């Protein structure tokens, strides 16, 4: 499989309450082995997936938010977060956990994976993809 396609994983749902966010992340991690051009999008309640300081102890569900910080090791380095979705929920970029990757093309410099984009930019990102998986 030499062909490389642009894959976008769209995350629209809160991290807990339903299993979509967790099972989406599982696809991303498995999919990384296929060496495609992978991006992730976070919009609507999906922006809550990246918030820092998550504590799930009281609901008895595994807190999988630390896994997002490992994405860089899987060469998943483009996490697009929609600004309007953050604002509509009273959130800002500072409420999100820090997620970085080491840029092999730039002397392994550590760079942020999260890119805040506008709704219009998000539409362009989606239009640019070959495969969009929506969760």
């Amino acid at each position, binding site marked *: *499989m030499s*062909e490389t*396609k642009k*894959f976008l994983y769209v995350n629209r749902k809160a991290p807990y309450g339903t*299993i*979509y966010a967790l*099972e989406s992340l*599982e*696809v991303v991690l*498995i*999919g990384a*082995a*296929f060496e*495609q051009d992978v991006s992730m999008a976070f919009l609507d309640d999906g922006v809550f997936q990246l918030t820092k300081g998550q504590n799930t102890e009281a609901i008895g569900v595994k807190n999988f938010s630390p896994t997002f910080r490992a994405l860089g090791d899987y060469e998943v380095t483009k996490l697009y977060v929609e600004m309007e979705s953050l604002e509509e929920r009273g959130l800002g970029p500072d409420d999100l956990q820090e997620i970085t990757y080491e840029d092999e093309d730039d002397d392994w410099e550590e760079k942020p994976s999260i890119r805040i984009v506008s709704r219009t930019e998000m539409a362009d990102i989606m239009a640019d993809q*070959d*495969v*969009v*998986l*929506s*969760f």
Partner: protein
Amino acid sequence: MKLGVVVSEGPYTHQAADTAYHFVKAALDKGHEVPRVFFYHDGVNVSTRLSVPPQDERHIQQNWTALAQEKGIDLVVCIAAAQRRGLLDENEAKRQGKDSNNIAEGFRISGLGQLIEMGIQTDRLVMFGD
């Protein structure tokens, strides 16, 4: 056109598995190819052969099995999602020390790699879910 299809909601609760079925039939009738359908999230529940809906209702699993066998479609059930929800084939049941298995004919359990591979190998990926 070569189409990949994902079903990501459970049968009867949600229309996704029905709509995907009608979509696949219509696409095949139009001359398109559907080499594989991937079942994920609660969509994996379509694959149980123990479902017994009332006789005057459609049988979603049997519809899929019949279509797959007639048209040669690869129905793949995500193993991780299936295990969470108690769906096991004979091998997995043995491996997990369970006393039974419940995957219907025409379906096979495999990994998420099959979903990615489908995305790479088809012209369009169509998801049915919420």
